[in-house]
């Protein structure tokens, strides 16, 4: 079956170059980087090279890179590791549209007696920075706000937020899992203290992440163990994956331009054609400040899971913020926070592209999507009612 994979915010294909780079470290080069002998030492050298490549993509110093097992671990470590360093401070500020790796940690902390301020977003998914300015207290230990939203692709003004937070002398963490590799990042000029990234969102495998920790940032290790990662994250290094991530970051830097030109053009083309061919369709999120690869689109009067399964039947892999796909009964917290009208919230579909997508694939989607939506609208009791109300029935 033909496969058109446009769910790259969920996960990406491992680049062949990345896999090739990893393979020797599963077999002949199995040494422990901490060992004193040459056999471990040669592996440590490769781990250091990978660290440099990650640092290079982020505009960071290699000593500021801590390898973790995934984006979720990075987020947990940043939040809990900061709060542990400021035991007297019991307040944190975050947003209502965070990924569960941050959002559910906040909920957990709320249960533990922390005060959590969740900043709201407007209809386009944008933050109100005045609300942030008014949220600080003497007790505030940390501000954690995502760089770009995984569902809508909306990019927050992270540097502007950093200015505000740092003026208060408070630690600032950002979940940049969806951002790294899609938007240029330069930590040398940034006000961000900590930044999370995940390998499998940029063509490295699942099971490897990074927490960037700026020099001088107060941080207690979340994973307590050996001296690895300069005592900031215990546990023997996941060598092949670290090396794979290093390669992926090297490639991501190379492809950054393509992401923001060719991929963005493909996304814009797909979006424009969908809006042109399918009535009662709306785009979710600030169209100006958005990841170049993401579009979240809502089709009124139909439900997302049904759309996804009909697309899937044709080999098209996308995702949805609808309730039914997640096993929850309400549409995604992101769309609800944005106040997307309920006629549209259940029918949202996210297409997220990568450098492996082509124009021909976009045309394939554009050819097959309109009849799918029409077919479901023909089954939906509300579509005919709507047409009647418009005098078209």
């Amino acid at each position, binding site marked *: 079956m033909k496969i058109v994979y446009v769910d790259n915010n969920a996960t990406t294909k491992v680049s062949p170059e990345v896999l090739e780079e990893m393979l020797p470290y599963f077999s002949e080069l199995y040494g422990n980087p901490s060992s004193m002998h040459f056999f471990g030492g040669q592996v440590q050298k490769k781990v250091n090279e990978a660290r440099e490549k990650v640092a290079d993509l982020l505009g960071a110093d290699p000593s500021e890179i801590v390898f973790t097992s995934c984006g979720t671990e990075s987020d947990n470590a940043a939040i809990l590791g900061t709060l542990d360093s400021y035991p007297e401070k019991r307040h944190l500020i975050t947003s209502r549209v965070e990924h569960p790796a941050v959002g559910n940690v906040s909920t957990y902390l709320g249960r533990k007696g922390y005060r959590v301020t969740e900043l709201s977003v407007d209809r386009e998914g944008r933050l109100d920075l005045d609300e942030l300015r008014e949220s600080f207290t003497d007790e505030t230990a940390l501000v954690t706000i995502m760089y770009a939203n995984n569902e809508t692709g909306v990019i927050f003004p992270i540097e502007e937020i950093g200015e505000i937070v740092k003026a208060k002398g408070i630690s600032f963490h950002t979940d940049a899992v969806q951002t790294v590799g899609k938007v240029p990042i330069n930590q040398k000029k940034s006000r961000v203290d900590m930044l999370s990234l995940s390998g499998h969102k940029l063509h490295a495998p699942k099971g490897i992440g990074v927490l960037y920790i700026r020099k001088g940032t107060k941080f207690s290790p979340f994973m307590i163990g050996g001296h690895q990662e300069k005592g900031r994250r215990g546990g023997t290094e996941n060598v092949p994956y670290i090396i794979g991530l290093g390669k992926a970051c090297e490639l991501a830097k190379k492809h950054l331009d393509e992401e923001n030109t060719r991929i963005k053009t493909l996304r814009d083309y797909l979006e424009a054609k969908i809006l042109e061919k399918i009535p009662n369709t709306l785009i979710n999120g600030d169209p100006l400040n958005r990841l170049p690869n993401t579009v979240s689109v809502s089709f009124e009067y139909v439900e997302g899971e049904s759309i996804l399964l*009909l697309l899937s039947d044709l080999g098209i892999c996308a995702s949805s913020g609808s309730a*039914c796909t997640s096993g929850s009964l309400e*549409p995604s917290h992101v769309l609800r926070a944005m106040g997307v009208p309920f006629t549209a919230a259940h029918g949202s579909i996210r297409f997220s592209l990568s450098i492996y997508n082509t124009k021909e694939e976009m045309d394939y989607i554009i050819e097959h999507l309109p009849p799918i939506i029409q077919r479901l609208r023909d089954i939906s009791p*509300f579509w005919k009612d709507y047409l009647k109300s418009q005098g078209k029935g």
Partner: protein
Amino acid sequence: MWDYTEKVKDHFLNPRNVGEIEGPDGAGEVGSLACGDALRLTFKLDESKRIKDVKFKTFGCASAIASSSALTEIIKGMTIEEAEKVTNQDIASYLGGLPEEKMHCSVMGKEALEAAIANYRGQKVVKEDFEIVCKCFGVTDREIIKAIQENDLRTVEQVTYYTKAGGGCGQCHPKIEAIIEKVRKEMEKEAPPPKLEKKKLTNIQKIKLIEETLGREIIPALKADGGDLDLIDIEGNKVLVALRGKCSFCPSSEFTLKQYVETKLREFVSEDIEVEEVRP
């Protein structure tokens, strides 16, 4: 991804009886756009008061569309009295089962049917007569009590799967818990559980039940030990099976068969089942 049966996929991809009947004898609508699913059911009777034609329109996920389609197929040709007895379990079984989280789709089918029958009889279902327990999804105590009774539910989570109640903000969870406790107490008083009353099964029902029991209770247990089993034939009460994988050369296979498969089939299907192994 949901583990939908082939039957669910078929009824989703090729839904039967889509549409709306003009001037129906009965019409019912449940759900809403805000809730994420809705079903409008219309039917017409023939001279002998049987459901001659029935159509549906559904907004919702794949299992909601499949449940609606299945419902129309089930009730076509039935009298109102027969249709009234159709349960949400019948809809789910017709589809070869639904993921538990999706059982509310079958309940929605049952509720639309009830609403359409009430409409045919000129009765009005007045939601206001009942207490709304779940404000997020507008679920009443009556709906929750029915779901508990008809589906033998025990936990808040299950009530959410079957009725959606409690699936939003979660504030009503203590209320749901109290309802479960009350209803279960009454259920146990009414029907003391000692022996499961087994209805006389038709051959088709028996075969289906044997297959279901094998698939749900027996094969997974054998597979856990590296074995497997094929159903070869059913002759009256005699069930012929062939063992595969590790089971087929296991010296205790006869023991496995007699003790395990037979006990399970007797428990779930009928007391007089006998299991016999055939060598493939």
